[in-house]
Every structure is written in C-alpha cells, then in structure tokens.
C-alpha cells in the first residue's frame, strides 16, 4: 500500500512535467503581450520593450522555462506581472471560496444524486426512472450560465431568499458563508447531479443482477437493505470514479459560476490572468489544478480499497 502510494506519487512527476512543458510553451506562443497590457494605452514601443526586458520576456524561451522550473523546485511560484503580489499569495487568498464552492457542490450533488440514481435503478423502466433520467439529460443540455441567471432571477430577485452575488468568508460565520454559496452550488451541481445520478443508476442496475443480490433476497433481506447495504456498496467504485472525473468538469464549471456570482475564487483568477496574459499566475494555476486532479484521482484509487476489499495495492 505504502509503496503503491509512493509509486503513484513518483508517477505524478512526469505527468506534471508534461503539463508544465505544454502550458509553458502554449503561453509563450500566444499572441498576447503582457508588457503591452501593463504599459497601458499611451505607451510607446520603447516603453513596452523596457517592460518586456524587466519581466524577463526577452530571454530565450528555454532559458525562461528553466528559470521558472528552478523557482518551482525551490517552491517559488514567481510573482504576478500585474499585482504587486506573489503568485503564492494570490492563489492562497483565492483558494477558500473555490474550495468552499467545490466542497458544497460535491456534497450537494452526492446527497441528491445517489438516492435519485438508486431509486431510478430500482424502479427501472417506470415513470420514476424516466423522470430522473429525463432530468439528468436536461441537466447536461442547459449551459451553466443560463441555469445561474434563472436561479438568481427566481431566488434572489423575485423571492429574495439568497444574495444575488458575492461571497462571505467562512470566518464571518458559517450561516452567511452558507447562504452566499447556496445558489452557486446549486447552479454548479446541476450537471454533477445529472452525471452522478446516471452513473449510480447504471452501476446499481448492473449490481442488482449479480448473484449475491439474489443471495441476500434468499436470506429474507428487505429491499431497502438489499439496495443500500448490498447494492450501493458494490456499486461504489464506478460512482466514486465518476465523482473523481467530475472534478475536471467542476473546474470548468467553477470558472463560469464564479463569474456569474462574483465569487473571488481561483476560477475568476484564472480567467482574469488569461485575459491579462499574466503568465506566472496562469502557469501556477494550471499546474495546481493538474496537481489537484492527479491527487484526487490517487485518492479515488485509494478509496477503492475501502469500498472493495478485493482491491489491494
């Protein structure tokens, strides 16, 4: 087990290196010039050149890459081209809202989706099944921002139950924090609920045809317990996998949701940084997201051992 984790951790190094190279190259080849953006509207060509030199953008790309890599190795993510702040500082102040949003979204999605999926599987072919699956397909079909605007219009403007936008730090109290995140989490979780409910249904359906379900029934077990004790635990591995895969999906959704709800998280930072060509920030964020993704997949793989004793590393 330990050696497995070590091996997996070691394997993340080449993956992240690939990511680093690709991201770095992609950014340096983009047409945008951060120096021009920094210099502003009235800048002359010479001023822009000065700034480029100052930012180190005039060095050969390979050299820039190794300077950056060297910094990374020392744990130094560099400094934003724009803000008088280090990338580390920028990311760490943005991490709480994004984590909160992602956390609430996943909790909400799991709590809603899994019972729905189990129900649909149990009632396979009935109208309940069709409604649940119909909802899940619609969940895939409506763009996130449309859902966001609709929810804001109904629940914030018409009903006034939740704030229109903004984020309350958890330090200001759990109540306000939660209220500020209800609509964003709902918006973001729609596609997630759809995804997990479908996976749960499929996976439970498959398990329900297994012999040990028949065994459990032959013992006289009640249907509820057959579903939730025997079926769900066996169906857990693909469900957990899809939750893990969904993290990638979530990251995309976070960008849009944070824009709609003005949540000062990493998603917004990413868009801002990309639009401003703030290379050090973009590089660090993509690398961080990739790292999180890889780690979550490792956690997912490790969680298999909890759900399925046959899996040992």
């Amino acid at each position, binding site marked *: 087990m330990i050696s497995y984790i070590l091996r997996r951790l070691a394997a993340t190094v080449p993956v992240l290196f690939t990511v680093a190279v690709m991201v770095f190259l992609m950014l340096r080849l983009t047409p945008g010039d951060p120096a021009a953006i920094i210099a502003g*509207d*009235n800048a002359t*060509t010479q001023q822009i050149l000065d700034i480029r030199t100052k930012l180190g953008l005039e060095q050969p790309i390979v050299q820039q890459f190794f300077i950056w890599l060297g910094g990374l190795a020392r744990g130094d993510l560099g400094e934003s081209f724009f803000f008088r702040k280090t990338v580390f500082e920028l990311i760490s102040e943005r991490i709480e809202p994004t984590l909160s949003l992602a956390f609430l979204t996943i909790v909400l999605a799991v709590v809603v989706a899994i019972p729905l999926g189990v129900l649909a599987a149990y009632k396979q072919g009935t109208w309940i099944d069709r409604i649940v699956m119909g909802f899940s397909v619609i969940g895939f079909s409506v763009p996130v921002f449309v859902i966001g605007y609709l929810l804001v219009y109904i629940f914030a403007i018409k009903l006034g139950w939740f704030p229109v*936008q903004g984020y309350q730090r958890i330090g200001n109290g759990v109540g306000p924090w939660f209220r500020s995140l209800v609509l964003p989490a709902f918006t973001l979780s729609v596609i997630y609920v759809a995804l997990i409910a479908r996976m749960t249904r499929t996976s439970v359906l498959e398990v329900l045809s297994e012999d040990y379900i028949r065994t459990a029934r032959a013992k006289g077990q009640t249907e509820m317990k057959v579903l939730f004790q025997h079926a769900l635990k066996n169906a857990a591995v693909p469900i957990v996998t899809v939750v893990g895969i969904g993290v990638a999906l979530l990251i995309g959704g976070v960008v849009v949701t944070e824009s709609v709800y003005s949540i000062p998280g990493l998603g917004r930072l990413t868009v801002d940084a990309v639009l401003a060509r703030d290379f050090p920030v973009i590089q660090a964020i993509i690398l961080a997201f990739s790292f999180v993704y890889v780690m979550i997949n490792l956690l997912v793989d490790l969680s298999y051992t909890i759900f399925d004793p046959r899996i040992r590393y």
Partner: protein
Amino acid sequence: MKSVKLSRRTVMAGAAAAGALASSTGASAQGAQNVLRVVMHSDLRIIDPIWTTAYIVRNYGYMIYDTLFALDAKGEVQPQMVDKYTVSDDKLTYTFTLRDGLMWHDNQPVTSADIIPSIRRWAARDPLGQTVMGFIGSMEAKDPKTFEIKLKEATGLLIFALGKPSSNVPFMMPKRVAETDPNTQITEFIGSGPFMFVRDEWKPGDRAVYVKFAGYKPRSEPASGLAGGKVAKVDRVEWRVITDQQQAVNALQAGEIDLIEAPSHDLLPLLKADRNIKLFNWNVLGNQYTMRFNHTVAPFNNPKIRQAVLYALNQEDFLKATIGDPEYYKVCKAMFVCGSPLETMAGMEDKLESNFAKARQLLQEAGYNREPVVLLHSTDLQVLTNLAPVAKSLLERAGFVVDMQSMDWQTVVARRVKRDPPTQGGWSAMLTSWVAADILNPVMAGFFNASGDRAAFGWPTDPEIETLRARFARANTVAEQKQIAEAIQRRVSEAPTHVHLGQWYSPGAHRGNISGWLEAPAPVFWNMEKGRGA
C-alpha cells in the same frame, strides 16, 4: 500608535460590512451606513497611477492622492494643494506655496521636497507632461512650503498640465516614492488624499478597500468638480468587483451594493424603472469613440484612403449600436469635444455622413488595391464590442475589403503595438474610446501626436501637424489656441490620424440614499453621503 488606531477602525468597519451582508438579503442594513459599496468599471490591479494610464488606476489615485491644481465644475483650473502661486511678469517664473496642514498618510508633513520629484516622475510618463517638461528650465524647493518653477520659454500649459484631470494625473507622492524609476511600479500606498488604501484587504479580482484619512485637511471652499474641499463623508469605501454587468445591476437593486460607476447602457431601462435607484451623469464631458489607423502599412499608409474612411463612416450608427438611447449620446464632429473651449467643426462639415459615393471615388483616385483592412474587434468590453461590426459593415459598403478579427481587449492591446504586416500579426485599424477630458487639446490628446516612431501605436508621421502642435504649446491665449486647434482639425480632415465617432455619456447609478456625487471627469467619493434607508 497611529497604525493601531487604523487597524481597529478597519476591523470595526469590516465587521459592520459583514454584518450587513449577513442580515436578510443585505438590503440597506442599518449597520452599514458608513460603508460605501461600489462597483467600478474595472478591477484595480496596478496601483501606480503614473506608471499606467488605466482609468481605474486614475480613480484610485484620486482616492488616496492629492493634486497641486484641480479642474472645477466649470472647467477652470483651481489651486488644490497649492495655497497660492505667483507668476513673474515675463511669465517665466512661477512660485507656489503649499497649503497648511497637508499630511501624508504616515502622518509626515507634505513638503516641497516631495513635490518636485513627483512632478518629474509624472512628466517622464505623461505626453502632456513631456511637452511641458520641454519648457521647464528648473524646479527648486525654496523652503518646505514653497517651490519655484522657471521656464525656458513661455507656455500657457503649465498650470493646465498641473491640473490635468485625467490620465495621467500629476498626483503628488512622498519623495522616496516619487524618486522611483518612472518605468518601475511603485510599491507604497502612501498619499495625502482624503482616503487611505487598506493594503491587507486589497484582493485583486475581488475588492479594494479605502478608509477615511482622519488627518486630511480639506480646503474651505465647497467641493466643485475635482476642486474645492474634499470632505470624506463615509468611513469606508469598498470597490467590489462584479464582472457580470447584469449581476451588478441585480446586486444594486437588491441593495447589496450602493453604487455602480458605469452600468451597461442596455441595462439602464431596468434601473430607470426602479424607484430606489437614481442615475447620475457624473462625467458631463463624456467620452469619444475613436478609430485609429495604422499609418505604416497599406492601405492606411495612404492619406486619401484614410480620408475615404472619414467619408464612409457616420457617427450615428456607431452610437446607436453601442449606446442606443439618444439621451446618452451626441453626434459631434468636433475632435476636441463638443462643449469644450476648443470645439470646432472646421474641415469636418461634409465628412462623417456615410457618403459612400465620395468614399468610393476617393478609393479609386488613391488606387486602392483591395488590400484587406485588418480590423481588430474586441469582444469582452461592453462599450466597445459593437463598434467593429458597424465599422466593418460601413467600410464594406464603401468598397473596402475588411478582415475583422475578434479577440479579447487585452489581445487588442498587445496586437496594436505590433508593427508587423497585417497578415503576420499586425493590424490596419482598431477602435477605442477616450475620456473627453483627456483630449481637450491637440497636445494632450495622444492620437494627434504625428511624430512617427515616437507617436502612439498607429505611428502617424505628419510634420505639418507636429509644427502646429509645437505652436499650440507656446500659445498663450485661448483665441490663439483655438485658431491652431482649428488648423490641426482641418489638416486631420485631409490626412486623418484617427476618426472620431461620436460622444457618449455613461451615467452612474446609485441607490436613493446616496447623495453628494460630484460632477467631474473622474468618479470621486469625497462629498458623497450615505443616508438611512434605501
């Protein structure tokens, strides 16, 4: 000692704001009266108003810095930090005396030793500053409160320049800050203005926070434009970032914020219909849409072809497509802005009427070879997005071949300084907007600079315009200035450096309990009050 007090206030104010949002929908809660929650047009990312010309940074400058002179509501320059000044008879020696009680935010007194490097650093960056610097022989601090500027040659621009209302504004900074290399961003936030910047709460992309500076001594005159007594009437100003325009309007209507600097024009009907919301046109001079040519490559290296554009376009189409409501735009052929001292129609009478026949004729005479016009289209700034499609449609009707390339504004910014041929990442034309206060005369308006490589992007070379601009700088009377401005406009109507596409106004919106917003070229938050209720 001071910092302890400051931080306690900060904490208390922060707690008040948090409490406000925590209660119900956050609509105008009782505890939040001294906090002004504002959505500005953009996010504050850079905090050096000399280093960049970005308007958001200019606005930041007005919060924390003070100026020697300032433009009042009538458009006249008034002393601000300066108590009084004298001019020698030969108009070459200016002696300034600072007001009593001017303090930096670190409670050090403001002295002449701070002023001179501040002027120098500004003059190194600002085009008008550079021009004025050409006239200045020496600057000298006579005593802590007095300094003297000696000119090599008389100019009417010195006081005007020191009171320049918009980017770059000559803000005064402490000596150690002002001595920073002009090409390097400053790292300190110490000014002498009515508000202090709270560094710890500055989260780019989220918010920028200011608190009232207790040590600020306002002038005794009532506030007028950017001049007069800058009395901070709220304890705290928070600039919130809401990138989604509609959400900003929603938040204003829900009372989650108090004020929007520049709500999207298309959303104004919503705000007009809301009894709790008031609209206020704070920038009376407004803004001017502009099309800039790249003079270094075909087809716009040919003045006749540029003139054809002038004939082909009309202002109304652009204004309708972007602003829509005629209440907020004005067709105006005066390049130095309608309503300003230098307003003139000279040379423009038959232009900007979408005379396609004339345009086609000019193209033929110029031997237009159907080189494609690479038109940069920015897609993410609401006030600019619809300009390029209109330009494309009009130019095509005049016989141009247009290759409109869409990109975000930052890419436009990067792209427009590239001098490559249009097919290899260069450009032919782009559209932008100026704050009218920045283009009131041919010296300060950057697009009239026709000194080739030293000019702003587009790089026009036109010795005739340059000669006229030099003469303008030396002109001492308004009549003389106006005559030169007319000549420049005439010259530009023959060989355009850029095309002005109409004036537009961007009213701010605020909740009914906010009062005291001043008419000025920049949004300022002194004098503003927040009353009870919505």
